[in-house]
């Protein structure tokens, strides 16, 4: 197999033994990007020279006999809302088209310290708002399994790159499903950690109380390796939690015998694509065969999750995005005659339609006279949704569900119908509202050859359990390491 299609786990082993150099791995991935990215459009910026230099440094570290982290020498991609010092961080927005941060995000610092090779910045929906990566101000990203389909969003660039071998792994962010939904569409593993598990410092905020950075990888083991490096308390983020970080990788193979798995009936409601439902049901049976006990459970407030989310997330976004005013950095309209006019024109031209739509919604939800009816009410419902999960986790270890009601949809299919687009996050959003960890693992392909994802959800800070269950499932599922066939643009699976 080509190096670019290997997992972090395999490459790390080869690298540690000196059987392959970081430079060779990095070249393999850079060549793959050069060969394919014109079709896929996963990257906004590739830092070839930087990556090669980092690869050389990693090789040097190994030659010097230094202690090697599992990520040392591994070429990774970053969603373009993670601040990278001196390197453009655009959030796929015209507003930040030329913005170069003065500092690295904490996760970026941790990757650098681990000796990872940072390939460049990956495409996304503008400011992480969207479910298809069609909302990038620069260009859309295509699904490597079928170039006529969206990769999902908003971390579509991060998932497409991993699926197509244009990064061994990547980091994305998940506010309402933005890691899990595109991971499901692209047939890769996407982990949304518990809120507070990974520092948000340097993550350009969309909705602060919901955002969480997480790994996007080819395998569950890779997710465990990557999470192990980025997780943990950070003094620069008050909401990051001072809980010890277990060795997720070492914990993977522990038994899951006697595991209790809840299957929420509300997640299998009308609108669920029959092929998705079939793949998830098959996965449930396989989990059962591993010795887990599955029972139907209820999360009664699920119906309110989307409405709650679009009030809270937009309210926070309207405030978080106020700083893009043309005063200090980023895009500025130069025609305006007055200060107010400068703000108006800068924001009118700098933001795309979806971002403006959400800022307006959020501004309205917070405005005098509507706060109680919308924002405060939404917070109350959020509490109820969290309590639903608490209730289930009293008796169950993991919840299993589909990730998205459908497989990847076609370009333009939902772009003129924001509400239909918002509903594609219906099964991922409750997890963000409750701050829980959840993972998407591949669980099948539709007749048209589109990946389907399985969602596993655990109680707060139970990532170790989540990864272990996902790993056991992955090993019996037969979908492990499934890759799209790209040259023929047919999207056929090859082993």
């Amino acid at each position, binding site marked *: 197999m080509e190096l670019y299609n290997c997992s972090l786990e395999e490459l790390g082993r080869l690298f540690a033994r000196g059987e392959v150099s970081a430079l060779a791995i990095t070249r393999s991935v850079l060549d793959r990007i050069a060969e394919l990215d014109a079709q896929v459009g996963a990257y906004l910026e590739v830092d070839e020279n930087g990556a090669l230099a980092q690869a050389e440094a990693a090789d040097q570290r190994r030659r010097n006999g230094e202690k090697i982290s599992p990520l040392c020498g591994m070429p990774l991609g970053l969603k373009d*809302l*993670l*601040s990278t010092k001196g390197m453009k*961080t655009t*959030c796929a927005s015209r507003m*930040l088209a030329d*913005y170069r*941060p*003065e*500092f690295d*995000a904490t996760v970026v610092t941790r990757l650098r310290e681990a000796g990872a090779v940072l390939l460049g910045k990956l495409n996304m929906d503008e400011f992480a708002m969207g479910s298809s990566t069609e909302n990038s101000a620069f260009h859309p990203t295509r699904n490597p399994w079928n170039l006529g389909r969206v990769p999902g969003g908003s971390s579509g660039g991060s998932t497409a790159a991993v699926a197509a071998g244009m990064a061994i792994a990547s980091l994305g962010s998940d506010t309402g499903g933005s890691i899990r939904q595109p991971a499901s569409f692209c047939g890769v593993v996407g982990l949304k950690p518990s809120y507070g598990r990974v520092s*948000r*410092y*340097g*993550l*350009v*905020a969309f*909705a*602060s*109380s919901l955002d969480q950075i997480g790994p996007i990888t080819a395998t569950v083991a890779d997710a465990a390796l990557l999470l192990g490096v980025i997780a943990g308390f950070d*003094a*620069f*983020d*008050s*909401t990051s939690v001072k809980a010890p970080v277990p060795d997720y990788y070492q914990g993977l193979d522990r038994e899951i015998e006697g595991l209790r798995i809840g299957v929420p009936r509300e997640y299998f409601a009308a609108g669920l694509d029959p092929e998705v439902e079939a793949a998830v049901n098959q996965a449930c049976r396989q989990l059962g065969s591993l010795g887990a006990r599955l029972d139907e459970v209820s999360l009664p407030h699920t119906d309110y999750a989307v409405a709650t989310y679009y009030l809270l997330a937009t*309210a*926070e976004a*309207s*405030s978080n*995005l*106020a*700083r*893009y*005013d043309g*005063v*200090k*950095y980023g895009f500025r309209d130069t025609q305006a005659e007055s*200060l107010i006019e400068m*703000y108006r024109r800068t924001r009118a031209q700098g933001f795309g339609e979806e971002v403006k739509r959400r800022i307006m919604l959020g*501004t309205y939800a*917070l*405005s*005098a006279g509507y*706060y109680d009816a919308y*924002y405060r009410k939404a917070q109350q419902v959020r509490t109820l949704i969290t309590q639903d999960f608490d209730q289930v986790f009293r008796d169950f270890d993991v919840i299993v569900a589909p990730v998205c009601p459908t497989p990847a949809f076609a370009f333009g299919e939902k772009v003129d119908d924001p509400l239909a687009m918002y509903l594609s996050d219906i099964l991922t959003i409750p997890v963000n509202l409750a701050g829980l960890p959840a993972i998407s693992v591949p669980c099948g392909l539709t007749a048209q050859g589109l990946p389907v994802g399985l969602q596993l959800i655990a109680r707060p800070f139970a990532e170790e359990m989540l990864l272990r269950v996902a790993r056991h499932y992955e090993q019996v599922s037969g979908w492990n390491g499934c890759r799209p066939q790209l040259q023929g643009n047919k999207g056929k699976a090859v082993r």
Partner: protein
Amino acid sequence: MMDYEIVIGLEVHCQLLTQTKIFCGCSTDFGNPPNHNTCPVCTGMPGALPVLNRKVVDFAIRAGLATGCEITRNSVFARKNYFYPDLPKGYQISQFELPICLAGHLDIEVEGGVKRIGITRIHMEEDAGKLVHPEYSGGVSYVDYNRACVPLLEIVSEPDMRSSAEAVAYLKALREIMVYLGITDGNMEEGSFRCDANISLRRWGAPHFGIRAELKNMNSFRNVQRAIDYEVERQRDILDGGGQVVQETRLWNVERGVTMPMRGKEEAHDYRYFPDPDLLPVVIEEAWIAGIRAGLPELPAAKRRRFAAAYGLSEADIEVLTAERAMADFFEAAVGFFPQPKPVANWIMAELLKFINEDKITIEKCPITPEGLARLLRLIEDGAISGKIAKQVFARMYAEADNDPLRLVEEEGLGQISDSAELAKLVDELVAANQDKVAEYRAGKVKMFGFFVGQVMKKTGGQANPQMVNELLKERIG
């Protein structure tokens, strides 16, 4: 005196004396070059997050306890959203629904006694930056973010004040307490203690408050008084003429001595407050409050009562000595070394204050220590030096930062000559050399005694112990 009752409420912004800003590690030093004290957090760069400075909470609790407030056990930071170039994030982190202190009070001295002014709330917030409009720039403005994220307490009073004099008395008392607590320098000119006033008039006995105007930009007690007086007149004229006061924010124009509208009603802001999701609620345990309560200093009013009782000083003396906590501390430390309150007070007020006022320095910077002053007073008491000499020694102690008056006295040979043999020798010589004057004295010219005393003093450069000289002379010629 007039048909209306004046109703005044004050909002005071008090800049805290922390080393670092409220949400980042940048310095709060005043006077650095523009944008020197900044980082990604205080300039609101994308992705940067605030982390609360615990010291600010300490100070807020201290302020709350000193003004009889309840301390909120779970207080919450909120975002106040508005656009302004000096506001780096497009919102100010402040407190709204759940401020850290609620329902306190402050007693002020008014004609005829003491009046209690309610304190509605005290909350923590960050300051904004500062716009700079240089003349040379051709209409271009700059922003200095050094002040952005500097910690402030906002102290909001009830509308309990009924005259500009009461407002100023309240402000003075509040400033004095906050400075005593060591949480602010109280410098009004540098803006570290600033005040907005809400003013309205209502006919006596009317059930509701009148429509109010908010006054900003008053940077001294005098300006507060003048601005309020002007505003009261302005509103009275409007009401007398049958008009209605417009609810608006007005700026005090110092040069012209008038208040002027700052922004119109149509630009009234909807701040869209909501809890800041980047910051956790501030949870305050009982032990935290108890620790701060135990460390609270004695407050000015209590100190004045105690000074009157313990030292028997006049009200005027006490007023001067307690105006600043450092002054009172100096006095008490000196009395500890030299337990005679009156001379200690006199020396502080007459000499020490004269020197530090001339040099425009605070008493903390004064080179003379309480112990040094006490030693000097001890030398006078022991008769080693005269009061007049003591003043010279004091000047040298101040100039040379030398707190050992005894060494100075010895070095300069300023000590009194109390050696009876030495003085006796001098007196004998004088008597021998001036037998004619001795005769005049003995013949009844009493004034001649003074001649001999004067001669001794002249010969000793004023250092002879006058009492001993008297006794010796009486012995020889009396």
